[in-house]
């Protein structure tokens, strides 16, 4: 196993990785920009190296500084966290060239999943469902009819030059296709001067449900069940939960199998996540694969009672996995707490936290690098805490999250806590009847 791991990240995930390393008896090196000199990851690591000024491009994203930091501290592995260099194939490659183990997949695995069209082709070859549609533009309405018959209604026609919903038509049966085709072309031509149209399967009531997978260096992969991340605002996840309220045993089995196929297709090494869109009929379609640990990984940890960062480190160290899939026991929810003003168009709210009290008690976990007196730098993302609860049932977990949000005190900056509180009380959330469109019609009081 590794003797010393450098964490090429900041904030809560850097602290998170340090915690597991300490529990495993592995030494840690924090790297930090001048803006983060007073950060807790710097305080709690065994060593800390200042790698550059505040802008990420000159510090957390600047590969030579990070490699140099690993070299001068003799770190034998680098944990990239999420964001920053975590899905950077070049970085993974350079680590290898410097004989530093990149804790994650190889450069070529990252590349094969990093490129969308490449990933899609790989998934089709592996038998993982992707959103079906025309290959490129449609030549005629008749070609459209043939394809629609194959992929099944409803379908959506989209303008290739499109945007803002213009030139888009959802078609529910063949009778309506010709009219829709004509009007979509006309609208697209008028709006964009380009009437090229392509077709996709229309996803009814889409849900974002992802499957956690783990693969070892010996080609074995398993899944750790799902996370429902449908509560999103502009593609930013706000709340995640597991099990998904929309899940069935059958669907979990099929999605789990598909996710393992996806991992096997690239002989995936490490922990990763296969993201799917699921429609109301419980058809699911591959969106993308994240080849790193995710922000929302703790909810999986809580329901399978296993530390995923420990698993990452063990796999990177060459340990092989059991081959067993894991299924949720109990119910876990995570709320992301951001220093943003939800009443002011989610404007970031950097500044100094004057008061801080994190909720506690049975089934409550707080992953945070913030504390009273901490100054949130304006240079990085605004997430300052992850609040995770676990309980025996979804109902209990919601009640627990409601009281934990109520108990969370952060003063001095604006946070998304009031937003989260309102979502947790929203009927659609409470009954588990929400899709990725949930926030589009959500009104903050």
């Amino acid at each position, binding site marked *: 196993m590794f003797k010393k791991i450098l964490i090429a990240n900041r904030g809560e995930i850097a602290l998170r990785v340090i915690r597991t390393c300490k529990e495993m008896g592995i030494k840690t090196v924090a790297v930090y920009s*001048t803006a983060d*000199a*007073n*950060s*807790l990851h*710097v*305080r709690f690591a065994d*060593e*800390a*190296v*200042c*790698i*550059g*000024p505040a*802008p990420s*491009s*000159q*510090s957390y994203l600047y*590969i*030579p*500084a990070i*490699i*140099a*930091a690993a*070299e*001068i*501290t003799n770190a034998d592995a680098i944990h990239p966290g999420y964001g920053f260099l975590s899905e950077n194939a070049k970085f993974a490659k*350079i680590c290898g060239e*410097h004989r530093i183990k990149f804790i994650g997949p190889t450069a070529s695995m990252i590349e094969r999943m990093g490129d969308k069209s490449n990933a899609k082709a790989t998934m089709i070859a592996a038998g993982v469902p992707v959103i079906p549609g025309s290959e490129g533009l449609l030549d005629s309405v008749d070609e459209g009819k043939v394809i629609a018959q194959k992929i099944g209604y409803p379908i959506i026609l989209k303008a290739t030059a499109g945007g803002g919903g213009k030139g888009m038509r959802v078609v529910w049966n063949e009778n309506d296709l010709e009219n829709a085709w004509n009007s979509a072309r006309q609208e697209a031509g008028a709006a964009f001067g380009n009437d090229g149209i392509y077709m996709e399967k229309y996803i009814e009531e889409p849900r974002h449900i992802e499957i956690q997978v783990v693969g070892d260096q010996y080609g074995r992969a398993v899944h750790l069940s799902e996370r429902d991340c449908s509560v999103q605002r502009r593609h930013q996840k706000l709340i995640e939960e597991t099990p998904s309220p929309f899940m069935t045993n059958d669907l979990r089995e099929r999605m789990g199998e598909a996710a393992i196929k996806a991992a096997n297709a690239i002989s995936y090494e490490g922990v990763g996540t296969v993201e799917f869109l699921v429609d109301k009929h419980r058809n699911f379609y591959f969106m993308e694969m994240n080849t790193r640990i995710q922000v929302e990984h703790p909810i999986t940890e809580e329901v399978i009672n296993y530390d995923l960062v420990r698993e990452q480190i063990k796999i990177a160290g060459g340990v092989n996995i059991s081959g067993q899939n894991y299924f949720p026991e109990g119910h876990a929810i995570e709320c992301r707490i951001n220093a943003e003003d939800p009443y002011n168009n989610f404007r970031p709210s950097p*500044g*100094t936290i*004057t008061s801080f009290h994190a909720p506690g008690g049975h089934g409550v976990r707080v992953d945070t690098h913030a*504390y*009273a*007196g*901490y100054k949130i730098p304006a240079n990085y993302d605004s997430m300052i805490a992850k609040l995770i609860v676990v309980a025996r049932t979804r109902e209990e977990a919601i009640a627990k999250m409601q009281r934990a949000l109520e108990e969370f005190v952060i003063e*001095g900056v604006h946070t998304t806590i009031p937003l989260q509180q309102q979502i947790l009380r929203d009927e659609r959330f409470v009954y588990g009847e929400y899709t990725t469109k949930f926030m589009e019609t959500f009104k903050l009081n």
Partner: protein
Amino acid sequence: MDLKEIQEFIKSIVRSGATEVKLETNDFKLSVTTPNKGRGNEVVSYVQQVQPQNQVVTEYIQPTPQPLMHVAAKTEAPVAEAGEKYLTIKSPMVGTFYRRPAPNKPFFINEGDVIKKGQAIGVIEAMKLFNEIEAEIGGKVVKILVDDATPVEFDQPLMLVDPA
């Protein structure tokens, strides 16, 4: 908070007749003792904007206020006494600092040398690349703070220069 404002503020305290003032806000801590005579050693302070890559950063060393939650410094703190007279040349990058261009060559500079702005004062190796470090200011090298072939962090003080 701008240093100019603080200077003015300190002056006003001295003028006010108070003998001791301590002020702590979310942004800074300030403690001023006045002899209530004379015009006191004013703290002059000059911080140059950090620039990417090989540019050398200089600043007057000043005792910095303690953060509320003190992070144990992993490197030695800049020499506080130097504050009023010397400029510090700091490392523009993380890596291994060498005082000579090659093992069989002499040091770029030694203590007591007078250097000119732009003069090479050392190299820093990172990812097997050697980056020459140039002095951003001229003056007499009072103290070299880092030995040959030593790991350095970004912003770590390398040497003190007397610009006078």
